[in-house]
């Protein structure tokens, strides 16, 4: 789960990482109140999860109330690369002497944590990596050992931080690493990490991506869930506990297992169709989950056919079949189903579907993934 900048800053604050005083506003009036609380001058920042906000006019300096009204009025409701701005973050405008970059992630290839640290901050780190890779310090950390202040100090020195910044940067690195590990982040990034003319080091932006698998030990994440940007189909799927990603095509996909679901998308594409979604009902999918999945798919107006691709491991064929029969009783599907059922208890499942007496115009069964995809695409393309 990706956090908005303001949420990232609030998350940073939990780990004592210094951020600018500020507040969130979803109206111009609230922005004025937040500006007064933060103290002028302030920066009004669009809260969208996409890069290039500044260039798009989504970040503006305001020296007084009139300017806050002007900028907040312009930015709220703005469309930045397809992202609607519903909230702005208003914070005290810090003076900047220098801009750095710092982040912690997991390096999957090395299976270690990775610090990236650079004196060239304030621009996209990918651009720095391209133009001046030597300016980025990459340092692995054994997750069992973690880091110490001494280690962080050495990293700051090795990244060629100016002497006056070393201590402040090191201190923030230790806190950011705690945020990354104890805070269960996939990514904890500060860009820019600034040196103020007064000598303090400070996080001017926050990019935080949380590991969904760790949600069980972070009740405080509940509020982030509420502001997550999902389309209506994705929201419905979440309520039902399904792994769903909305796409643009016309063949609704239900598969068990992420790999098989991805593969189903690929095969649909290869035979000339396009998928309306990715939906993994997971291992152990039962009748309830299957009928919930069909409800979610049915909600999508652009679906012209539904391809169910099940290979039973944990998932049992008879459960899948029962779920389909049950769903057909519960909801009236707008699109016909093509199913391919194999693996554990597939024969029992096929028998249940047969004996339910469902007409071929509503449901047809195909022996292979490829044939099922062809049939589903033929229906979708004919409608």
């Amino acid at each position, binding site marked *: 789960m990706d956090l908005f900048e303001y949420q990232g800053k609030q998350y940073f604050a939990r780990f004592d990482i210094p951020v600018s005083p500020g507040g969130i506003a979803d109206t111009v009036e609230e922005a004025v109140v937040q500006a007064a609380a933060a103290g002028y001058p302030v920066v009004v920042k669009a809260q969208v999860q996409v890069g290039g906000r500044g260039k798009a006019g989504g970040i503006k300096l305001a020296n007084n109330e009139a300017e806050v009204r002007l900028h907040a009025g312009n930015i709220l409701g703005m469309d930045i690369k397809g992202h609607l701005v519903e909230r702005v973050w208003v914070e005290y405008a810090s003076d900047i002497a220098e801009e750095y970059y710092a982040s912690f992630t*997991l390096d999957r290839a090395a299976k270690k944590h990775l610090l990236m640290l650079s004196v060239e901050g304030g621009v996209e780190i990918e651009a720095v990596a391209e133009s001046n890779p030597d300016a980025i310090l990459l340092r692995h950390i054994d997750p069992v050992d973690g880091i110490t202040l001494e280690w962080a100090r050495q990293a700051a020195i090795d990244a060629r931080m100016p002497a006056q910044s070393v201590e402040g940067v090191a201190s923030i690195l230790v806190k950011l690493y705690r945020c990354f590990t104890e805070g269960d982040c996939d990514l904890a990034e500060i860009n820019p990490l600034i040196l103020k003319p007064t000598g303090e080091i400070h996080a001017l932006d926050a990019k935080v991506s949380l590991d969904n698998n760790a949600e069980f030990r972070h009740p405080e994440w509940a509020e982030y869930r509420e502001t997550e940007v999902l389309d209506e189909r994705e929201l419905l799927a979440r309520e039902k506990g399904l792994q769903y990603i909305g796409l643009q095509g016309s063949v609704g996909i239900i598969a068990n297992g992420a790999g098989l679901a991805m593969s189903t998308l690929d095969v649909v594409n290869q035979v000339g169709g396009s998928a309306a979604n990715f939906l993994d009902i997971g291992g152990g999918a039962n009748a309830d989950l299957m009928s919930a999945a069909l409800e979610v798919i049915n909600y999508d107006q652009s679906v012209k056919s539904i391809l169910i691709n099940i290979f039973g491991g944990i998932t049992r064929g008879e459960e899948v079949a029962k779920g389909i029969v049950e769903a057909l009783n519960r909801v009236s599907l707008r699109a016909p189903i093509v199913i391919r059922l194999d693996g554990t208890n597939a024969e029992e499942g096929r028998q249940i579907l047969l004996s339910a007496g469902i007409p071929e115009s509503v449901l047809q069964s195909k022996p292979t993934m490829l044939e099922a995809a062809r049939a589903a695409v033929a229906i979708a393309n004919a409608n």
Partner: protein
Amino acid sequence: MAIFVDQNTKVIVQGLTGGQGKYHGLRNRAYGTQVVGGVTPGKGGLDVEGIPVFDSVADAVAATGADASFIAVPPKAASAAILEAAAAGVRFVVCITEGIPAQDEARVYNTLIRDFPGTRLLGPNCPGIISPGKCNIGITAGEIAELPSASGPNVGIVSRSGTLTYQALYELKQRGIGVSTCVGIGGDPVPGTNFIDCLREFQADPETHAIIMIGEIGGSAEEEAAEFIKANVTKPMSAYIAGVTAPAGKKMGHAGAIVSGGKGTAQGKMDALAAAGVRIGLNPTEAGDLMAEIVASLR
């Protein structure tokens, strides 16, 4: 021969008294796997359909001589279960648990490397391993795995995705091609066993004559495998990579399956493997067809 597990492997099930552990543990036993015990703290002394349950892995190992463990416990308990098995000297640990936090996985992986080099972890979030006719640990339906033939040629399977592992087994079964061992390494960011670990074993296994590899988008494990294949694998291979049509920036179900910053695309992986001499199928059936051609040429 087979890799990692065979008819002599003795398995305990951590979480045998839970729903998943019981269902799959009993299925594994019914397949012919030597399931010699279960572990559930506080339930030592009980039994599950004749399989004795112990309070700890150490107790179970001492009483049964088990050298492998099948972990089927919830995400919260999985990390501790893996380390408990390692500390008790278990050689091969299969963890099917889905949803373990990445920070825990990274710590467990590096703890195993450092403190328990004699323990190999398969998974987490994997379907398990089957050496057909000998040993099945995990959730694979044993009946879809073709037995290896004494005269060969037999195929080894290694896959990052659970259901695509079954699909690969099924493709070979349809064609009557024997399988030496099928390993599902799982779709998480830090798998305990990776493609290269399996490829090395398959290359050394006299019963394996060709290899199918099933990858997916995200990370660079397939690219690293391609480098390894180029330098070390002489047995013919076919491969399939899932997620050609996956949009960037979206996790496709698996925590590890994401195309980010233009990295980890299916195309890049297919190109790398093709350059290493691996024949690439555009779907699992095509990979199966290619393997059938390879096997025919070996006969």
